[in-house]
C-alpha cells in the first residue's frame, strides 16, 4: 500500500492521533499506536479492517498512480462546476480615501490620475455589467462597493446609482468602508436595508489603539466618528459588520474593544456582527515585528482566549486559513471544497470596475493596468493573455504544489504575490499551514478529542 501525498497527522496524546487527508477531505481520530506502525512501515501488523478503512478514505492507495488520476478528475469536475458560478461585480467609484491608515496597501492609489469615476465611466461600468450578465446568462451573486473609500461625499450620486442597479438585478450588496462618512449615506442606504448583506467597517481596537492606526490625513483619529456612525447604522437596521484587523501590535487589546462594544449593546443587536481578520503583506515573504508568523499570532490569540473564553466563542479561529477545512468539518459540514487555486481571482469570478476604465480580477491589483483583465470603457474588451495570467495558476500547474500535502487546502498561495515577488504567475507562495495546524491542534486537540471520543 502506498501512502497518499496529502496526509497530515498530529499526535494529540499518547493514545490518539488526528489524521486528515486534504484531497479527499477525510478527518479521523486513530489510535496513536496504529498510526505509529504505519509511520515505521509495519503495515502488515495492522488489522485488515483498519487498512481497508484507511484506503477507502484516501489515506492509502494500492496503485501509486491512482491518486494523481483522482486529483486530475476532481480538478476537471471542479472547473466544470466553476463555469456555472454566479457573477460578482465590484465597483470602485474612486481611488481616493479620506483616511491614511498606517498599513494601507493602496497608498499609491490617491496619486492615480483617475481619482474618481466620471459619469461616463460609471455609465460604461453599468453597461458593461449588463453585457457580461447577458453573455454569461448568469445570476448576479453580489454587487460590492470597494475603493479607495466608496462612501466619500463626492461619490454619493454614483453610489446611489450602483445601489439602484443592484436592486434592479436583485443582487445582495456588500460595502467595504472605513465608516467615517457613513452617516451621510444613511438616507440612501436605509431604503436598501433588505438588500444590504453587509456593510463592513474596520475598528482596530479601543480608541487609543485604533486612532494610532486609522487616522485622518491631519493625524486625528477616526474612532469616535465611526462609533457614532455605527450607532446610526444599527438604529436604521442596516446590517453592519465590524472587522478587527489583528497583528502583533494590537492583538492584546481585543478584550478592551469587546468591553466597549458590549457596553454599547452592539453585540445583542441582530443587525450587528463582528469578526477578526489578519493583517498580511503580499509584497514580501519575510516577517517583522508587526506581521509575525501566523502560528505565533495564533498562540497569542489562544492566550487571550484562555483568559477570556467569551472571545473564543465570539470569534473562533476561522480567520486562520490553514484551519478552515478542519473547523468546517468539526462544525458538521460533510466535507469541504478542495482548493485547486488560492482565490476567486483565479476563476475570474470578480469583475472589479475602476475609475481608470479597467476591469481587474483581484482587489489588490487595482490601479495597475498591466494586471487588468480587460477594459470596460469606452467598450468592453477582455485581454485573453491577461486572463490566463490568473487562471493558469492552479496546484496542478505549480510544480511544488502538485504533491504538497497542504495543496488541496491551500491552493498554492496568492497569485498577486507570485507576480509581484517573482515576476512569474506560477510560483508557490507557501503560507504556514504545517505550523498553524500543529499549533492549533497541540493547544486545542484535547478539546476536540473530548467531543468525539467521549461519545463512543
Amino acid at each position: 500500500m502506498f501512502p497518499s501525498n496529502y496526509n497530515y497527522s498530529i499526535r494529540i496524546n499518547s493514545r490518539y492521533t488526528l489524521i486528515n487527508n486534504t484531497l479527499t477531505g477525510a478527518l479521523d481520530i486513530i489510535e496513536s499506536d496504529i498510526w505509529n506502525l504505519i509511520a515505521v512501515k509495519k503495515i502488515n501488523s495492522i488489522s485488515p479492517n483498519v487498512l481497508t478503512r484507511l484506503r477507502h478514505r484516501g489515506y492509502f492507495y494500492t496503485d501509486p498512480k491512482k491518486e494523481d488520476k483522482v486529483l486530475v478528475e476532481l480538478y476537471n469536475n471542479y472547473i466544470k462546476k466553476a463555469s456555472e458560478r454566479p457573477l460578482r461585480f465590484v465597483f470602485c467609484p474612486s481611488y481616493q480615501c479620506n483616511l491614511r491608515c498606517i498599513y494601507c496597501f493602496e497608498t499609491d492609489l490617491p496619486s492615480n490620475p483617475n481619482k474618481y469615476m466620471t459619469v461616463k465611466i460609471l455609465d460604461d461600468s453599468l453597461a458593461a455589467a449588463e453585457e457580461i450578465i447577458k453573455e454569461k446568462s448568469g445570476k448576479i451573486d453580489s454587487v460590492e462597493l470597494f475603493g479607495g473609500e466608496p462612501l466619500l461625499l463626492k461619490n454619493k450620486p454614483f453610489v446611489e446609482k450602483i445601489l439602484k442597479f443592484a436592486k434592479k438585478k436583485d443582487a445582495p450588496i456588500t460595502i467595504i468602508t472605513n465608516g467615517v462618512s457613513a452617516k451621510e449615506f444613511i438616507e440612501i442606504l436605509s431604503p436598501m436595508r433588505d438588500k444590504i448583506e453587509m456593510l463592513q467597517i474596520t475598528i482596530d481596537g479601543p480608541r487609543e489603539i485604533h486612532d494610532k492606526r486609522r487616522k485622518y490625513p491631519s493625524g486625528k483619529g477616526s474612532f469616535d466618528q465611526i462609533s457614532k456612525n455605527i450607532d446610526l447604522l444599527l438604529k436604521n437596521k442596516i446590517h453592519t459588520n465590524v472587522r478587527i484587523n489583528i497583528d502583533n501590535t494590537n492583538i492584546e487589546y481585543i478584550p478592551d474593544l469587546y468591553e466597549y462594544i458590549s457596553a454599547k449593546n452592539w453585540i445583542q443587536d441582530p443587525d450587528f456582527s463582528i469578526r477578526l481578520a489578519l493583517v498580511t503583506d503580499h509584497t514580501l515573504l519575510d516577517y517583522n515585528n508587526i506581521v509575525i508568523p501566523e502560528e505565533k499570532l495564533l498562540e497569542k490569540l489562544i492566550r487571550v482566549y484562555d483568559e477570556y473564553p467569551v472571545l473564543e466563542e465570539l470569534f473562533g479561529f476561522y480567520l486562520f486559513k490553514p484551519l478552515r477545512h478542519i473547523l468546517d468539518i468539526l462544525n458538521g459540514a460533510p466535507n469541504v471544497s478542495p482548493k485547486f487555486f488560492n482565490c476567486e481571482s483565479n476563476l475570474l469570478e470578480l469583475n472589479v470596475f475602476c475609475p481608470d476604465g479597467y476591469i481587474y480580477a483581484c482587489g489588490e491589483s487595482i490601479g495597475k493596468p498591466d494586471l487588468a483583465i480587460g477594459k470596460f470603457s469606452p467598450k468592453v474588451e477582455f485581454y485573453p493573455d491577461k486572463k490566463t495570467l490568473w487562471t493558469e495558476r492552479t496546484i496542478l500547474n505549480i510544480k511544488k504544489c502538485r504533491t504538497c500535502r497542504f495543496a488541496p487546502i491551500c491552493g498554492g498561495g496568492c497569485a498577486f504575490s507570485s507576480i509581484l515577488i517573482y515576476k512569474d504567475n506560477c510560483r508557490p507562495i507557501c503560507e504556514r499551514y504545517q505550523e498553524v495546524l500543529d499549533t492549533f491542534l497541540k493547544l486545542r486537540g484535547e478539546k476536540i478529542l473530548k467531543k468525539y471520543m467521549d461519545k463512543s
Partner: protein
Amino acid sequence: MKSINKTKDLWNNDLTLKGLKDNFGPMCCWYWCLIYRIP
C-alpha cells in the same frame, strides 16, 4: 479509529463533486485579511 465525516461524502467517492456546496467564497484575502504594506 473514529471517522469525523462519512466515507460516502469524501471526494474520492464523489469524484463528480455533486456534494460540493455552490458557495465557494468569499475566499479572497482582501475580504478576510487586511493586506498590509510596511511603510
